[in-house]
């Protein structure tokens, strides 16, 4: 079983305060729509994510939860609506501006999405050498070891992803994402496919790292224990729209059957 050792690193997070808009809203989504052919997945999405806030998006499979964060990360282009990230309207950005903005956004994929031909060390060095242009071997090793230390996986540094368990892969994926010190984290079902103990460890790790790196996060999940641990606010999605918002406790008391079903 994996050790849930979360080591505190003394290094200060390298957040770029100038990027945060004055109103503290780091992501603003207004009337977002997205279709795939005839299938309209996002019908009218409206959301504001504030600095330091963790929002959990709950919803049944196939409701477009992941599509929303893929639009935020610029992996998908919305059909209509306004999508502002750190005060910048995504649709107006050119390739270089989008690339620059993406350095402020971290994305943890459902599978971890580790580069399977590279070791854990190489996986973590990849964004450092390409994005931050760090070439010094000592500096790279220090940063990689710090990042792995913060997810409790320093010993896995020279292993290949195929040698790691599902939970370990998620942790390494998290370390690789956080190594660029993003201001916003997008988690796509971070606990899916994990046993309840590892899922709890990952959820607690999300909260710990959020406090440490002062990130804001959108977490896509249908794992209620994960939602309870990580959420400052929960948004419930159904049929391409957000139908309710509130804290875990508020929504748990909701008379709406659809919402209530999640909390049973």
């Amino acid at each position, binding site marked *: 079983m994996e050790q849930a050792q979360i080591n505190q690193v003394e290094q200060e997070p390298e957040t770029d305060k100038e990027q945060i808009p004055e109103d503290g809203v780091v992501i603003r989504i207004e009337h977002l729509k997205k279709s795939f052919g005839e299938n309209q997945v996002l019908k009218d999405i409206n959301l504001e994510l504030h600095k330091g806030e963790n929002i959990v998006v709950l919803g049944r499979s196939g409701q477009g939860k992941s599509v929303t964060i893929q639009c935020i*990360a*610029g*992996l998908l282009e919305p059909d209509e609506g306004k999508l502002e990230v750190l005060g910048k309207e995504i649709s107006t950005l050119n390739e270089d501006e989008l*690339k*620059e903005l*993406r*350095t402020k*956004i971290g*994305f943890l*994929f*459902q*599978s971890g*999405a*580790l*580069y*399977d031909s590279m070791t854990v060390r190489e996986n973590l060095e*990849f*964004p450092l050498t*390409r*994005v931050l*242009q760090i070439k010094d071997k000592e500096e790279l090793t220090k940063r990689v070891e710090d990042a792995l230390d913060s997810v409790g996986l320093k010993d896995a540094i020279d292993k290949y992803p195929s040698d790691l368990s599902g939970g370990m892969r998620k942790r390494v*994926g998290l370390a*690789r*994402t956080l190594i*660029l010190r993003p201001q916003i984290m997008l988690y796509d079902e971070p606990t899916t496919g994990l046993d309840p103990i590892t899922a709890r460890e990952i959820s607690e790790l999300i909260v710990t790292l959020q406090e440490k790196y002062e990130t804001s996060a959108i977490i896509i999940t249908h794992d209620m224990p994960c939602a309870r641990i990580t959420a400052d606010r929960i948004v419930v999605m159904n049929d391409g729209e957000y139908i309710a918002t509130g804290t875990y406790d508020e929504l748990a008391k909701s008379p709406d059957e659809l919402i209530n079903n999640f909390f049973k």
Partner: protein
Amino acid sequence: MAAVGEQISFATQFGRNIFRNGFEWNEFLHQCYVVGVRSISLVAISGFIIGFVLTLQTQPTMKQFGAESFVPGMVAISIVREIGPMIIALICTGKIASSIGAELGSMKVTEQIDAMEVSSANPIQYLVVTRILACTLMVPLLTVMADALAFVGGWLGVNTQGHVSATLFFRKAFAALEFSDMIPAVVKTFFFGFAIGFVGCYKGYHASRGTESVGLAANSAVVTASLWIILLDAVAVQITNLLYY
């Protein structure tokens, strides 16, 4: 039409990223090793057998016409001009384009390419540029090696039905060749290599979600690249004829 537009856009991205800062030399050299060195045995055996079989097939007919002495020259011209580049390119398509298509397709399905994109790294520069350039460089080298081994196979083929010294065989073979045979033949292999790399990368990079699409990407890469090679060869023959004959 949408697919054509997508291919043009992909080619444009490839072109732009060749000259961007931060060329991935290590990955390029690794891909040269994967594409070139790991294909040597297959290409060498194929080249040798092509020469050997071609000689065995043509020698009896040539003998009937009393033209046995022309066998080395005929083998040399056939191998260098057409059979060598064409068959080696098709063999490389089966080995390399399918492998690139499956590898990138698998990376797409497992969201590794998305992860690169989201982290602001440049997947086109790292994955696509290196593979296409490695194919463009290595396929001509593999073809030249296969041609040389086909000559050796041809010499051994001649010797199954009599004795011809290596010196005589190779002298006659090279005497039949001119620069107008070799230059266009080598130049077209660069285009074949590019087609193999480009189609493999395009099919893999645009694989849809789901494990089935990895197999489809590999399969489609082989079929499309093979068609491109045949088409390019037809164009190359026309251009060569216009320039030299």
